[in-house]
């Protein structure tokens, strides 16, 4: 535990916690960017340069834009602050999904065998990374890709207004 690591963890955790508690969504997204930069620093501390800069390029460069555009372009419904029956059921569903995802990840983290002794890091050349991604870890890559596609489809479905519901309101 050195000072750099402690500062990185502190900045990452505090910025994400503040981002969750803020009312202004734009400020939350900008604080999340600090969190992502913190994660990038985390990778850098452990000498994973390639994944650190990819994290920066993808999250700070692209995902932040998606989040900001999503905040700006979605119409805030007038009944945001009111609790109705639907929002309660949604809350329960969200809680169940979140808890199951968290338990799945916790299970995976706890049951992964981590090597006890120090492992010699492989030289992270572009060639070796590309080879690993297209050979040994190709299924993982494809599963992640389809998961992300599903997530995008799901969010489109959530955000989409069917013409029927428009007539009702």
């Amino acid at each position, binding site marked *: 535990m050195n000072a750099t690591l402690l500062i990185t963890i502190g900045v990452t955790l505090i910025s994400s916690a503040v981002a969750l508690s803020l009312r202004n969504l734009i400020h939350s997204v900008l604080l999340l960017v600090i969190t992502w930069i913190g994660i990038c620093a985390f990778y850098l501390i452990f000498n994973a340069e390639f994944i650190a800069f990819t994290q920066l390029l993808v999250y700070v*460069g692209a995902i932040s834009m998606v989040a900001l555009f999503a905040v700006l372009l979605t119409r805030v419904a007038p009944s945001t602050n009111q609790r109705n029956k639907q929002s309660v059921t949604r809350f329960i569903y969200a809680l169940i999904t979140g808890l199951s995802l968290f338990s799945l990840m916790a299970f995976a983290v706890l049951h992964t065998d981590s090597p006890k002794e120090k492992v010699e890091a492989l030289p992270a050349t572009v060639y070796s990374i590309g080879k690993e991604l297209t050979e040994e870890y190709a299924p993982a890559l494809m599963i992640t890709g389809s998961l992300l596609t599903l997530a995008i489809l799901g969010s489109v479905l959530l955000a989409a207004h069917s013409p029927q519901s428009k007539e009702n309101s």
Partner: protein
Amino acid sequence: MSMLPILQTQDPYLERLPLLLREAFTHYLPEPWHTLSNQLISIVVILSVFGLLFAILTLAERKILGHVQNRPGPNRTGFFGMLQPFADGIKMLTKEDIVPVAADHVLHLLAPVSLLAASILTFAVIPYGKNLVALDINTAALYFFAVGSATELSVFMAGWSSNNKYSLLAAMRALAQLISYELPLIISWIPVVMVASTLSLTRIVSLQSGYSFGVLPHWYVFTPWGFVAFALFMVSALAESNRSPFDLPEAESELIAGHLTEYSGFKYALFFMAEYFGMTALSGMAVSLFLGGWNAPSPYLTFIPSYLWFAVKLLSLLAGFMWIRATFPRLRIDQLTRFAWKFLVPLSLINLVTTAFWILSQNWGHLYFIPRLIITLILIVVPYILLSKKLGRGYAVRTYSYAPQ
């Protein structure tokens, strides 16, 4: 400035001069301080050299634009208008800093600062000379574009925090442009990484040393795919650094300076500075990736130190930027995005395939060099013609009639 302070004694004296100068500063300090002081000197040198270059560039741009438009340009301050940048600096510093009452004050300040910080950070990895690179990392090229992508966030912050609907709309427009052109910018340099199979810029530059037949340098711009990639890279770089003819984000003459509407004084100057820094850094990147970095163009000219060659290439690319600004009219936003998505992105993807062919046909031998060259050229030229025909359909050659006939 190098991380590895190895003084190669076989290098000529001028080549070693920057390192010797640094040594003269640091050898009084105790040994453990050397790394820190070396890095501090690198930072100071980069900041002062590029800060001064920024001042000279603003003057050069105004002079060049002036002469292209048949007027003298600034010529009242000092000899040949030499003191104009400093007069501008004093003016900007002493101007009142106006922040709208309803603006988000913190973000309004953070936007120009983070933009400038991101554009200065990109200077760290460019190899300026044989022994001159501030940060020699294995993933330098990726670092450059990762840090550069933070500029989009600053543009958004500037537009949103101003609390002005024109600023916000302009920020959206600027983001549409930056995101559209970031894709061809990044895809266009992937062929270089494919051929060099490394992301380290010092390695990419050293792979481009050497000469065929004793004359033609092994720069990537002289290969068919390299030439196309260089052209795509420069067009995208022009758009990424908001330069004319892609200067829609700012467009001071018709779009009230876009997301900069509510900025004045030194904050405005910071945006301006970041634009020039971005332009310089992208040109330096183009020099390193395609134009052989600090390598001399001929084996007979290697007596001139490497950093001077880098400077010559960088300045000629920057002069090209200014020439383009003086020549081309501004695009419309729909033309701009159509050009990116329908022309540049497909062409850069096709260039990836061409490069793959070029790599796979590497061991065809000297006999098949001409057919290899021809197939590569066909792979590039045919899609280029088809795409440009398709893009130009419905936009026939205009006939102008200035007076009733």
